[in-house]
């Protein structure tokens, strides 16, 4: 007998339960109820978001593949598969395991598609480090990522980290992975062919992670230990063996479909493989390897124990699969058969009694809700800002140093040195430049990848902020010499049932859509994470963009730091009198106000095309995108980000027709700093002219100081040692302070 307390505890509403009764025309069994609750959760069913996500472009200039659990693009005979996914709530509760299993889960999505994982990235957001719990979170999350990723032998090549009060009580951990496969060797995540076998492979099933998707990920949560048991525990060694064994079985040709048991575990894998293959599955619980005694059938069905997969194998070939898994000392057991009646039928382990008998479609077709939305009240208040509301600064050296010290801007060396970023021998641009670059062995090409989102802009103006996230990701890739190709989006928002949060979500999705269409890049995969709230409100809307780009010639890769003394320094793009949403306004004036920076997509494209063409013609020695901290911070980074060879700069030809602080620290979009030999200048000017890009020669490289002057008046004059010391060590010092 199902009581309202039971289904509500599993996260189902009265209306949803009524809906289940109508669909089944009877009361569900306990196991069925648990399965519905999992499949119809926000996390698995995308019930509040599916309606809007439809508008994201599925095509772009590169041929795009949309798979069941991931997506990718085709480059020659290779498929490049990639996806980003959130693991926010688990990480807030138990940072090490939360982050570790986030990495494990996203990597499984890649290799179940038949692709070998070749790189990982991440996007992390925490409250300020002045709070001890945030320090604990940062330590735990970084430890979890290194613990899992390093063991797997998948290099963690890039990412971003921001610190802001809005993430107090709800950190964000978004993990991205990239894999490659021959394009004709990709695997599907479906079950088909009557009589074929359904095999369970990998780790055994325990009680860890029960309710992970329906309870932990699909509701707001208040901090506390009570939900810790809903966080999964990761075993990277098991996953490493699982990667090798999986790629080995896929190469046999006997595997018809394969799916990771991620959120909602076996429930999701069985019902979605059946539904996507337009088949049924008849299985018994008797053979499933269990790590705990007396597990109830419903617990087995929704457990989120890690490192497990479901495989559909050609009848008669089970032994081949078994042999490969036993070579790797992993479980592989046949638990059922494919049927043609499209019904998921599950039998009890003791007596063969039928516990579940539901049409696969009913389970997987979660309801779609049209959510009400309304512009939040804060928008009007906060956008009401004039630049003259804040006074000019007197000492720009101090401003520059305090920006370089800000943990969101400072070097992330303390973090990325803990990640193995070189294994697999492909990382040709190491972490610390605008985008990470990995070569594709056996070709002359490389992939550039980045993750990006300035969520403060999205808070001030969700539509434009989301467009900027796409534009900036593309700009980062272009600076490495790559053509932007495709994105994965990881959409982190507050409670979708609150109309002001949903308004943010709707506008961000529209912004991503319009920007991607403009740049002709597809959205190959993505993930939505709602309910990111703390007692004070929602997090800033954070639509993290993971973008990959293609570098045609591995010898034409560019990095952000200056290479030679005596090179010319060029500013592409236009600096406007604006600093709404800037790090400067927040850090120096303590304000989060104004509008997000202006964005003219045509100008953005012109700047990117100019940069890319100049790099491809071998004219450019360095290229760096301007973002947080603006022109002064960007130039300083060009001077100091190659620790082994710092090169100074003298900037003496800026246009001071706007307020000096806006010029130095404003965050106008669509700007890139290039450096080049003097003899390349004319050619670069020609290219800029062709694309109608504003170009200005603002100074030259050399010496051991960073100087910006207005005529004879030095506005900024700091030694490189000092800049480097502050920028490189700020994060480490913040972490160590108070311990």
């Amino acid at each position, binding site marked *: 007998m199902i009581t309202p307390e039971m289904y509500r505890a599993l996260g189902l509403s009265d209306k949803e339960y009524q809906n289940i009764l109508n669909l089944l025309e009877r009361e569900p069994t306990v196991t069925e109820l648990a399965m519905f609750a999992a499949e119809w959760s926000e996390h698995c069913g995308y019930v509040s978001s599916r309606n809007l996500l439809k508008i994201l472009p599925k095509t772009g200039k590169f041929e795009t593949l949309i798979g069941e659990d991931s997506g990718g693009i085709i480059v020659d005979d290779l498929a490049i598969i990639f996806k980003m996914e959130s693991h926010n709530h688990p990480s807030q509760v138990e940072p090490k395991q939360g982050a570790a299993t986030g990495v494990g889960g996203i990597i499984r999505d890649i290799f179940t598609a038949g692709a070998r994982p070749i790189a990982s990235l991440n996007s992390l957001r925490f409250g300020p480090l002045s709070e001890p719990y945030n320090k604990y979170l940062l330590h735990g999350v970084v430890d979890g990522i*290194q613990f899992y990723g*390093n*063991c797997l032998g998948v290099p963690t090549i890039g990412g971003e980290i921001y610190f802001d009060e809005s993430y107090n009580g709800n950190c964000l951990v978004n993990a991205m992975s990239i894999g490659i496969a021959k394009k004709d060797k990709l695997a599907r995540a479906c079950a088909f062919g009557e009589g074929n076998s359904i095999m369970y492979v990998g780790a055994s099933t325990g009680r860890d992670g029960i309710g992970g998707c329906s309870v932990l990920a699909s509701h707001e949560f208040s901090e506390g230990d009570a939900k810790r048991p809903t966080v999964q525990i990761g075993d990277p060694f098991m996953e490493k063996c699982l990667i090798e064994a999986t790629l080995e079985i896929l190469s046999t040709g006997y595997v018809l479909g394969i799916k990771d048991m991620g959120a909602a575990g076996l429930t999701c894998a069985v019902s979605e493989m059946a539904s996507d293959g337009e088949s049924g599955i008849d299985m018994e619980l008797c053979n499933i390897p269990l790590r705990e005694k007396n597990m109830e059938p419903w617990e087995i069905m929704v457990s989120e124990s890690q490192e497990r997969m479901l495989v559909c194998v050609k009848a008669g070939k089970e032994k081949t699969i078994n042999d490969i898994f036993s*070579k*790797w000392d992993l479980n592989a057991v046949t638990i059922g058969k494919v049927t043609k009646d499209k019904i998921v039928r599950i039998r009890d382990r003791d007596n063969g009694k039928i516990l579940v008998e539901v049409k696969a479609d009913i389970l997987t077709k979660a309801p779609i809700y049209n959510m009400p939305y309304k512009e939040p009240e804060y928008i009007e208040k906060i956008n009401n800002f004039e630049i003259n509301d804040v006074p000019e600064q007197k000492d720009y050296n101090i401003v520059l140093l305090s920006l370089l010290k800000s943990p969101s801007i400072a070097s992330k060396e303390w973090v990325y040195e803990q*990640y193995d970023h070189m294994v*697999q*021998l492909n990382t040709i641009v190491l972490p610390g430049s605008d985008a990470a670059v990995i070569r594709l062995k056996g070709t002359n090409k490389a992939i550039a990848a980045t993750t990006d989102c300035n969520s403060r802009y999205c808070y001030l103006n969700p539509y434009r902020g989301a467009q900027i996230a796409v534009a900036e990701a593309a700009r980062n890739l272009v600076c490495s010499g790559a053509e932007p190709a495709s994105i994965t989006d990881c959409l982190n928002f507050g409670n979708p049932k609150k109309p002001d949060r949903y308004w943010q979500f709707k506008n961000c999705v529209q912004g991503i859509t319009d920007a991607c269409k403009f740049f002709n890049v597809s959205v190959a995969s993505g993930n939505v994470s709602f309910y990111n709230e703390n007692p004070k409100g929602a997090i800033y809307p954070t639509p993290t963009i993971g973008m990959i780009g293609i570098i045609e010639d591995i010898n034409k890769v560019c990095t952000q730091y200056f290479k030679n003394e005596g090179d010319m320094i060029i500013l592409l793009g236009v600096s406007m009198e604006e600093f709404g949403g800037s790090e400067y306004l927040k850090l120096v004036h303590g304000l989060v106000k104004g509008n997000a920076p202006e964005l003219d997509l045509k100008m953005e494209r012109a700047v990117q095309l100019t940069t890319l063409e100049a790099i491809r013609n071998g004219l450019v020695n360095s290229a760096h995108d301007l973002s947080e901290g603006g022109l002064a911070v960007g130039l300083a980074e060009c001077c100091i980000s190659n620790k082994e060879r710092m090169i100074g700069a003298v900037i003496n030809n800026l246009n001071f027709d706007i307020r000096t602080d806006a010029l130095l620290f404003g965050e106008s979009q669509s700007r890139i700093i290039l450096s080049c030999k003097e003899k390349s200048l004319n050619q670069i000017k020609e290219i800029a002219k062709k694309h109608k890009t504003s170009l200005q020669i603002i100074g030259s490289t050399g010496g051991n100081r960073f100087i910006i002057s207005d005529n004879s008046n030095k506005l900024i004059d700091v030694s490189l040692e000092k800049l480097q010391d502050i920028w490189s060590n700020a994060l480490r010092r913040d972490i160590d302070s108070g311990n």
Partner: protein
Amino acid sequence: MKFLRFGVVVFPGSNCDHDCFYVLSNVLKQDVKYIWHKEIEVRDVDCIVLPGGFSYGDYLRTGAIARFSPIMQGIINFANKGGLVIGICNGFQILLEAGLLPGAMLCNKNVHFICKHVYVKLLNKNTPFTNLYKKDEVLKIPIAHNEGNYYIDEKGLETLKENNQIVFQYCDNPNGAVDNIAGIVNKEGNVLGMMPHPERCSEKELDSQDGLFIFKSIIGGI
């Protein structure tokens, strides 16, 4: 160039096996095969590579479980007959656990995993692994480990020094290793263990090519 037969041992959890294989076969055009850890004998190879990674997940202690793999007895026999064995990172840790090299590994002094380029100084060029380097050459080479803090007691250290067994020393000690030790050979000189990864700096596309001469020395020396 001569053609040697290399065997790259694969333990469950090895993750630099493909990298070592790639450098030896694709960059250096040698004859390379994988040796599965469940094999018992080492056959038809001139040099064995124990690659980096997390054999058995580094559970219990790095290298502590791998040393009980069936192949280890074969490797010990191969080494005792004078065969060349190179252990890189986790491979070094396994050689220590198996007793083919003296000493032990502790957790890095800063208790973090460290992945970065470091500089190491060559102390002994009279080994089959280093004979093509210049005397006292300094190599730029990546490390990537959590337990690279080499430990040996004073008496053991004296013995290493007396026999010229210290091959590489860190210029700027990243992990707390005794006497800045980054790599050592056994007394006979045919077994090398090193924490830095030469396979990660053996191609022009990567940040450094200083590791290449380790493999070239092996190939040239036999």
